[in-house]
């Protein structure tokens, strides 16, 4: 996709920190802090839920390493990992990504929420609603193996179908 800002940045290798076949990590173009990293799938996906499981697996593996490097290289006192799905979650770009943000005491980043009170009835209602939809959770899609070129015979000597028919036993 050429009209996606992040596909463009990936193609340009802008501020690349890590790259492999499926995953790209870069310094965030709109940082919340010095050393803010974003980890993205190379294949364009508009939201996190549309990224294939095996790519999500790589995204989190690399996001964890990005978080460790923020501790080790920058001496951060904490990190936040944030994935935003949908506009109401604050997603502003049409390319799924994992934010890894360095945190320090008293950095005053406005990240968090006020916990609310709930009732046992409400929890039970949520449990049954979500559980029903979560039945398929836990089985992961794997990458389709690439066709092996060499084993594909290019020209198969074709037997005459009519003879084959004759040989078939009833």
């Amino acid at each position: 996709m050429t009209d996606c800002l992040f596909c463009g940045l990936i193609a340009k290798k802008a501020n690349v920190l890590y790259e492999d076949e499926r995953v790209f990590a870069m310094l965030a173009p709109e940082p919340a802090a010095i050393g803010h990293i974003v980890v993205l799938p190379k294949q364009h996906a508009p939201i996190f839920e549309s990224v294939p499981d095996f790519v999500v697996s790589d995204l989190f593996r690399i996001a964890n390493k990005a978080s460790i490097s923020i501790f080790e290289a920058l001496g951060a006192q904490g990190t936040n990992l944030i994935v935003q799905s949908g506009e109401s979650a604050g997603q502003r770009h049409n390319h799924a990504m994992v934010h890894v943000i360095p945190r320090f005491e008293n950095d005053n980043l406005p990240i968090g929420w006020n916990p609310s009170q709930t009732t046992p009835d409400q929890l039970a209602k949520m449990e049954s609603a979500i559980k029903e939809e979560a039945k398929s959770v836990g089985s992961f899609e794997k990458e389709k193996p690439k066709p092996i070129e060499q084993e594909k015979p290019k020209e198969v000597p074709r037997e005459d179908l009519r003879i084959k028919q004759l040989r078939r036993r009833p």
Partner: protein
Amino acid sequence: MADEQQCIFCNIASGKIPAKSVYSDDKVNAVLDINPASDGHILLIPKKHVMLMAQMDDELASHMGMISKQLSHSLIRSLKVDGVSIFVANGPAAGQRAPHFMLHIIPRKKADEIALAPPAVKVDSALNTAAYKKLAVSLAKLTGKEPPSFDDKSKGEEKKDEKKSEPKSESKQDAKPAPKQDGKSDKGSFKSSLDEITDFLMGGKK
């Protein structure tokens, strides 16, 4: 270990303390938060006692990611919400309160007053560039890859060899709390702020 027997979240993850579980397998338990940010707020808790994400191996980190994606999908379908936030806090400075790692999966609605969007902050570009180089070297080491080539390549190479010659890091060092002596750490070579944070989380529990 004694730590794990006392840890509330180990007991929630294993089912010893009852909770509303929406998914569970041999590695994780996903339960509803009793003080949610919004209705349907899920805590994805690893069964293994880890305090920080950094203490997870690749397999567990990947597993947590894939399960959180699928649970997020389940929330969108079951609660008909139009957004989901996935959130991790590593360390008290990032908002972590419990001495057991967990990942939050939070259903979102417009104007719900949950602040989980990275704010845009004006950062010093020279400092950000310096951070970039350090991160690239560190991340390359962690992933076993070559670091990307920098514009001034020689400088980057120098830093890799002798990390001590960084005058700027001194002020930061001073600001850090002194490492606790009582907290035993058997990973002596793994020298970073991670150890201090682990100590802090342990101390908070005792």
